[in-house]
């Protein structure tokens, strides 16, 4: 089973090189990492997937990212509800990121159903749990709890990532399980979320059986 860290930010954005982060990821139990704005490669037996994050908040930028068709894992930073629905329905988008910064109604049951049908994963950035303190961290935890209850009902995927900019920010798989338990995620759910990435590249237009 694939265990993926989605996403990491190696040098020059962070203070650690891609090779070093791949080496650390292997030691920490991962076999795949998604590196933002780095080419696809493999170091020390760890597959590195190219990641691209669209931060502009416009559908024009989202469509431009999809048109590049370079095999990258494309994530879009969430905005208001209308924008998120449009993003989820756009073929070629893999991740909806940064939902902890949005209003509660930005991701409702309709968007959740669409995300499940279109196989768009919701990105949970654990760096927010580490970097924030007090009220900010409480808000992130509440938001992730809300997303988890929607996920349990509608069955969309989660993609968990450390959001690391340094090897010191990377976390082991067991630490990820412990951190996800803070907002009620079980061990099995966390392991499923860590193995989400290969499913995102499967054809989503075909009909599938929903249990």
């Amino acid at each position, binding site marked *: 089973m694939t265990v993926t860290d989605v996403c990491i930010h190696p040098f020059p954005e962070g203070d650690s090189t891609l090779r*070093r982060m791949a080496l650390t990821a292997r030691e920490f139990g991962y076999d795949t990492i998604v590196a933002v704005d780095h080419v696809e490669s493999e170091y020390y037996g760890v597959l590195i997937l190219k990641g691209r994050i669209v931060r502009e908040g416009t559908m024009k930028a989202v469509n431009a990212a999809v048109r590049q068709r370079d095999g990258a894992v494309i994530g879009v930073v969430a905005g208001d509800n209308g924008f998120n629905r449009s993003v989820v329905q756009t073929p070629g988008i893999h991740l909806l990121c940064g939902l902890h910064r949005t209003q509660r109604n930005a991701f409702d049951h309709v968007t959740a159903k669409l995300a499940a049908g279109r196989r768009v994963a919701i990105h949970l950035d654990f760096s927010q749990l580490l970097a924030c*303190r007090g009220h900010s961290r409480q808000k992130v935890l509440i938001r992730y709890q809300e997303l988890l209850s929607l996920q349990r009902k509608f069955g969309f995927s989660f993609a968990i990532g450390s959001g690391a900019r340094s*090897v010191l920010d990377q976390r082991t798989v067991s630490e990820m399980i412990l951190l996800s338990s803070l907002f009620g995620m079980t061990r099995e759910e966390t392991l499923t979320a860590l193995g989400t990435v290969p499913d995102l590249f499967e054809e989503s237009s075909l009909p599938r059986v929903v249990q």
Partner: protein
Amino acid sequence: MKPLPPTLRENRRYLLLRITPATLEADERELYFAVSDAVTALFGDTIAAEVHTATIVREGEYLILRCRRGREDTLCTAIATIRSVNGTPVHLTTISTSGTIKALRRGIRAERKGNSIICTINEAERTGILYADEKIDLIRRDMKGQDVVFLTKDDMEIFHATTTITDGI
């Protein structure tokens, strides 16, 4: 004074942690405050009191902590949220948990030997440590504090960097 009988004593668990980077300059007291702050920030004073954390000893890149039995996961979760000690970025990894310090010490490996090196990147000299597993931790001390850059020996070519092994930093 008569010692407390074993049945009335608090049951404890001991945790073995690895400190990254190993060169972190912090004693048991400073590490205790970092762990204690993390537990309190994440779970509050009530749970922090139940966890009853204490630092036992630091041995090189390893740290042994103590907590109340049954609260190991709580402490491990809080430890995973620690990002710095005394303003220096750090990662504390929980390696194992045990009921005795003796059993825990079996998990301690021999200290990783590293060669002190001087690395030249873009004509700027940086001191660092080259480990046997080809990891390189560069250290630059400046006005802002300590800036560490992590790379591997394979990266040296990309950075057009050269290394010179020194006697010590």
